[in-house]
């Protein structure tokens, strides 16, 4: 019995370990967990915007151009205009449509899966050979090739895994997403929109905007980078609640690969947690006067890679420029704000809103940003090596500078390296005997999970339900319409008729909601209180009744 227990325990520990490994691996992939349920025709209004396109290729004798697009930012400012909700999902073929009897495709990178292609044929076009491909005009998307992504395409029963360099990549986050991933609406406005735009190669760019679309004149912030070599990683957006910067000031951290190495370095700012979880940072700074849109790019090399972190966009107090001056060819600006005084130093950037930043100059300029109260000359940080205009890819060595001692230590241990060899050999032996290869585990787990592939679809369905709950405005009185023209009858009744209109309930809703809420909460609290023993003991309903019965029987026995 003891051995069985041990085996069970070992298996349990292994499962825990393997699940941890898997979770870690999953964290490194690009998954749109929150959006995987979006592939329904009932997309919420406040859905993020995706757009991307694949290169044309031939699969199964069919030449494809693929394109898909989600749009749903009804209130958001979008390229200077309000666009209506729409969803487009197109794969175009230059060969005969009749040669395709079975066509599905899914996008691997984002966890999006087109479960049943027939559901989305409304915008699914297959052109004949004579047909002309017409993509929606988008002057902002020149045909550059870009980073790779994978697409599963099934043509006439044959499945292809396509790895393509996509031409462009376009992500946008509506206000809820921004709130979810970034911050909690510090300006008490309804809509923010952030999108990123990657072109590669060519005029490589990562562009991001966050704005309040209710106030089109206010552009919350904008960032821009000159190189894009990696996909963005929306799942790694972290919400930094404790960052309290200034109005109009934002900090955006992007994966290292996303930024040109030349942007690195030259930064000394922000909380430690940000330094710990970001690799490079783009820093956006709006002029304290909030009248000009200026750019600042900073880089920072931290511990982890592939994090995409946006810090708070600021407090409600505009920092006030105390004074600025030039010292050692650096423009130094001092700003008063909620959290003391901040100092910005740069060799080529105007501070104080008097000069607009010129992007190429900013990118290659020397710049530092740190918090410090100005009390005189002595407060300036002396001798910071990264004030040098030399740009680097790795952070300055913060460890010991005593290189000689390291070398001498290395010399001392040279003579006993064979001990290391033996130890490593033993470790390798044990490792090969007892530690399973990762590929082995992956293969086994994949073969197992492939039998439960329906789980993904179920998860997507549940996610769509959760998204609906999150994004639906339940305060609007619903009105049900009947489409009379769709009646199964020889007579066409024409238009729609109102079947159910709850606008009459609107005046009473607030009061009734209060009463219902009170009843619901009281019931829930009372039931929870009664169920408290079970909750604490982690048992079901039987525990409390068992205790009660035991008490009763004790009492009876006592009597």
């Amino acid at each position: 019995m003891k051995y069985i227990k041990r085996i069970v325990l070992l298996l349990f520990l292994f499962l825990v370990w393997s699940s941890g490994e898997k979770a870690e691996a999953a964290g490194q992939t690009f998954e749109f967990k929150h959006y995987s349920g979006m592939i329904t025709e009932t997309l919420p209004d406040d859905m993020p915007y995706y757009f991307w396109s694949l290169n044309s290729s031939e699969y199964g004798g069919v030449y494809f151009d693929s394109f898909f697009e989600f749009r749903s930012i009804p209130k958001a400012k979008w390229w200077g205009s309000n666009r209506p909700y729409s969803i487009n999902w197109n794969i175009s073929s230059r060969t005969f449509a009749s040669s395709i009897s079975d066509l599905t495709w899914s996008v691997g990178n984002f966890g999006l899966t087109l479960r049943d292609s027939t559901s989305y044929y409304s915008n699914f076009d297959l052109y004949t050979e004579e047909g002309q491909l017409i993509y929606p005009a988008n002057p902002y998307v020149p045909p550059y090739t870009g980073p790779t992504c994978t697409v599963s395409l099934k043509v006439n029963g044959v499945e292809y895994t396509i790895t393509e360099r996509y031409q462009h990549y376009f992500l946008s986050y509506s206000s809820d997403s921004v709130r979810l991933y970034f911050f909690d609406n510090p300006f008490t406005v309804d809509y923010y929109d952030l999108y990123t735009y990657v072109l590669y190669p060519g005029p490589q760019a990562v562009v991001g905007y966050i704005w309040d679309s209710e106030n089109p004149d206010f552009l919350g912030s904008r960032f821009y980078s000159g190189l894009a070599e990696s996909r963005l990683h929306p799942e790694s957006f972290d919400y930094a609640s404790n960052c309290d910067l200034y109005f109009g000031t934002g900090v955006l951290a992007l994966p290292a690969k996303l930024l040109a190495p030349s942007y690195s370095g030259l930064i000394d700012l922000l909380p430690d947690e940000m330094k710990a979880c970001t690799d490079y940072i783009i820093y956006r700074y709006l002029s304290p006067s909030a009248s000009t849109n200026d750019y600042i790019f900073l880089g920072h090399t931290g511990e982890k890679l592939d994090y995409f972190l946006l810090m708070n966009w600021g407090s409600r107090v505009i920092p006030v420029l105390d004074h600025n001056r030039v010292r050692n060819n650096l423009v130094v600006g001092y700003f008063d704000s909620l959290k003391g005084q901040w100092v910005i130093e740069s060799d080529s950037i105007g501070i104080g809103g008097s000069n607009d930043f010129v992007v190429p100059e900013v990118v290659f300029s020397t710049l530092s940003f740190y918090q410090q109260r100005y009390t005189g000359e002595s407060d300036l940080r002396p001798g910071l090596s990264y004030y040098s205009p030399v740009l680097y890819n790795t952070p300055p060595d913060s460890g010991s500078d005593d290189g000689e001692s390291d070398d001498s230590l290395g010399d001392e241990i040279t003579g006993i390296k064979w001990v290391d060899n033996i130890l490593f050999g033993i470790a390798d032996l044990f490792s090969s005997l007892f530690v399973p290869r990762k590929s082995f585990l992956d293969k086994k787990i994949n073969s197992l999970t492939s039998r439960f592939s329906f789980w993904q679809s179920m998860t997507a369905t549940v996610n769509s339900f959760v998204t609906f709950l999150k994004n639906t405005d339940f305060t609007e009185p619903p009105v049900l319409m009947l489409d009379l023209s769709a009646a199964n009858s020889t007579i066409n009744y024409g238009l729609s008729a109102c079947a159910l209109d709850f606008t009459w309930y609107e005046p009473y809703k607030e009061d009734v909601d209060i009463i219902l809420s009170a009843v619901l909460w009281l019931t829930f609290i009372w039931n929870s209180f009664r169920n408290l023993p079970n909750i604490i003991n982690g048992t079901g309903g039987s525990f409390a009744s068992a205790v009660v019965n035991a008490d009763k029987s004790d009492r009876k026995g006592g009597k």
Partner: protein
Amino acid sequence: MIVEAILNIFFGIVNTLSSFIPNVSWSVDSSFFSAFYSMLQIAGYLLPMQTVIGILELVILFNIFKTVISLLKTVWQLLPML
């Protein structure tokens, strides 16, 4: 090698068992969701949804808590040295 051999046996058993499970597809016509969400929207309008969602979240939280406690208790019982 050793652990892999054990795992091979384990996964072999699991795979064999799972092979008896019929192929299940979960493909729901999206038009169903439109109707379902319409009904849900009506219900959501009539009910104080903030309260309902809050209570639902608490119920789920309690159940997760109970599950974790149960799991810990089970592991504790399985520990051979205790």
